[in-house]
């Protein structure tokens, strides 16, 4: 009955198959603004973003004492930092498949346990290989099981304000990034690397609480019964626009991380001392968080062409990367770094919100997972490639130019997506949300099938 909070209030724009409602159309009277548990989902997903991103970054910060303790060369130890990132991204589809089958909440909670366990076991490692397996594989896998279900759930809970919700959530990563700066050295100095890993494991266990907040959404027609993941994933692999979208972000990822990873070294190169280097990097991280929230807010207003916003931010990020080599003084570098950080942060929530624009909410979780897996190729290649360019040419100019070029190439691919140039009558409404996605994607742009025959 209207007025009762128990009525399945169907929010506009995504839940009933075939309904051509547009975002911003009035809610049925008596319906809560968001499904119950929405705030919890936001909080849980924010915590997840902070802990997963924080955990991965923390590993990078612990590399030096680890290397010292095992007497290993920098190259061998670096794998302890990059393996969890690789596992996180490559494990994306697994996270999606499992959470579609079993629900986001249990999978995320188990992921929290696994990642905490991985770090816990790492604290007792007696050999570098133990660290690869525990921190790299186990913790990375755990993080993968938390990441995609969380983002997917946010996307489904907030169909009308997806980008703002995603922006708020992913800003958690910036918060933890800033907190880690002082926290990790403090842990390392007080407890050594073993104690630090132990405490990081405990902190990571909070992911279980984050997962608990992902309340399952009561969707009328959806049943998690038969494993639909196979058809879902396979269907996505034949979905032209999705493939282009994923490829765009593979290219973006090649360039995206370069200023973050090599920024400190570049600042040294132009003569900044340690304090100024730390300032530049911290400023970049802080501004990154701001960019995420602002861009999410900007794109969340009804009837905004999200893909166009995404294109603008990616292009701006690429252009800033291109001019980064021009920053040869502290002030110049700081200004450019702030610009880059802001634009780079801005594109993150729009990337995830944009997935729903391309493939619809029903396949959102799968698409995020698959996209993450593709992206891993870009992100794993990007920073080492830039490092190699620097070794070959003697400074970072070419590295940043290359990063900018890849980012711009990715932005150009976004231009080719359906719905980019189309007008805004009925604005980008995602394709219908069937529990069973059609075996073959419709040949014409999905929106054509939905054009309100009004």
């Amino acid at each position, binding site marked *: 009955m209207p007025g*009762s909070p128990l009525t399945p209030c169907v929010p506009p724009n995504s839940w009933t198959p075939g309904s051509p409602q547009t975002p911003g159309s009035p809610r049925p009277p008596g319906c809560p603004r968001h499904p119950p548990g929405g705030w919890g989902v936001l909080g849980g997903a924010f915590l997840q973003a902070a802990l997963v991103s924080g955990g991965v970054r923390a590993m990078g910060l612990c590399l030096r004492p680890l290397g010292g303790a095992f*007497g290993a060369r920098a190259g061998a130890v670096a794998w302890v930092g990059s393996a969890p990132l690789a596992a996180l991204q490559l494990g994306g589809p697994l996270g999606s498949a499992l959470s579609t089958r079993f629900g986001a909440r249990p999978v995320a909670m188990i992921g929290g346990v696994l990642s905490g366990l991985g770090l816990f076991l790492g604290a007792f490692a007696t050999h570098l290989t133990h660290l690869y397996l525990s921190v790299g594989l186990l913790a990375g896998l755990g993080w993968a099981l938390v990441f995609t279900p969380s983002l997917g759930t946010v996307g489904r809970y907030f169909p009308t304000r997806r980008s703002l919700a995603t922006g708020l959530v992913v800003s958690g990563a910036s918060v933890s990034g800033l907190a880690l700066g002082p926290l990790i050295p403090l842990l*390392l100095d007080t407890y*050594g690397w073993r104690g630090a890993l132990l405490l990081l494991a405990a902190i990571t266990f*909070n992911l279980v609480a984050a997962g*608990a907040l992902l309340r399952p959404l009561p969707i009328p027609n959806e049943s998690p019964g038969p494993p639909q993941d196979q058809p879902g994933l396979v269907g996505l692999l034949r979905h032209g626009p999705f493939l282009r979208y994923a490829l765009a972000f593979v290219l973006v990822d090649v360039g995206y991380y370069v200023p973050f990873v090599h920024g400190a070294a570049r600042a040294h190169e132009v003569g900044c001392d*340690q304090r100024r280097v730390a300032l530049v990097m911290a400023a970049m991280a802080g501004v990154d968080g701001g960019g995420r929230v602002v861009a999410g807010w900007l794109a969340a207003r009804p009837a905004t062409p999200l893909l166009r916003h995404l294109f603008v931010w990616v292009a701006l990020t690429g252009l800033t990367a291109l001019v980064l080599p021009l920053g040869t003084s502290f002030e110049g570098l700081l200004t450019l770094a702030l610009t880059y950080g802001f634009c780079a942060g801005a594109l993150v929530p729009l990337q995830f919100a944009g997935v729903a624009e391309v493939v619809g909410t029903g396949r959102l979780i799968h698409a995020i997972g698959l996209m993450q897996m593709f992206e891993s190729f870009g992100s794993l290649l990007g920073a080492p490639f830039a490092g190699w360019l620097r070794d070959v040419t003697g400074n970072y100019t070419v590295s940043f130019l290359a990063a900018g070029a890849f980012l711009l190439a990715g932005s150009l691919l976004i231009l080719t997506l359906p719905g980019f140039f189309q007008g805004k009558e009925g604005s980008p409404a995602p394709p219908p949300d069937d529990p069973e996605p059609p075996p073959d994607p419709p040949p014409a742009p999905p929106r054509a099938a939905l054009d309100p025959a009004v």
Partner: protein
Amino acid sequence: GVSGTSVEKNITLDSAAGIELSCRLDNKYSHLKSLQVTWKRGNETIRHINKTENSWSIQLWILDNSKLGSYSCTLKGEEEISAVFLLQGKEKPIISYEGDTAVMICKSFGYTPIAWTWYMTNGSEQIAINDSLLADKYVINRISASVTHLKILKLTKEDDGVYWCEAAFELGKSKGKLQLKVLSLMVPLKPFLAIVAEVVILVTIVFLYEIYSKKKEKRA
């Protein structure tokens, strides 16, 4: 100073800093004309000397430990007088756990030592570590000409303390100080258990709240 004697000053920095070192000549020597003062680091002469009436100084940016070491200002007049500044980093203690293996590293910048010796402190004495005698406890590796590793196996509380690495050169010796702290696993275990308890409480609260709000909805 006076003819023949040398002055030495130790400066310890605990973080990257800009520093100015200056040598000042006592007033009673200001009658000496045509003074030539050179600042050097090892054999390398440093330019950019700031000079006032009777003082000569240099400015250094110490960004990392490759800039640490001995800096000297030498006065060439009738006699040669020099003052030496020894810049050292403040070493952070190395933290390890009982039963674990600790690796301590010493590096020499600028000069290649002929030999390295490791010492441990017992009370106020320094005892050389003989790794062939106690091969299952200590392992000393010379990784390269200017880097040495001391590995201590099967740590116990007694291994806690100060260690010295001494580099022997043709003309003298130089020592570096390292501190090893051996903790028991109980130390981080307490905060670990506290945080895990917090997680359990948090999860319980989440589920209890959900059950409560569902009951509220049903009643409404």
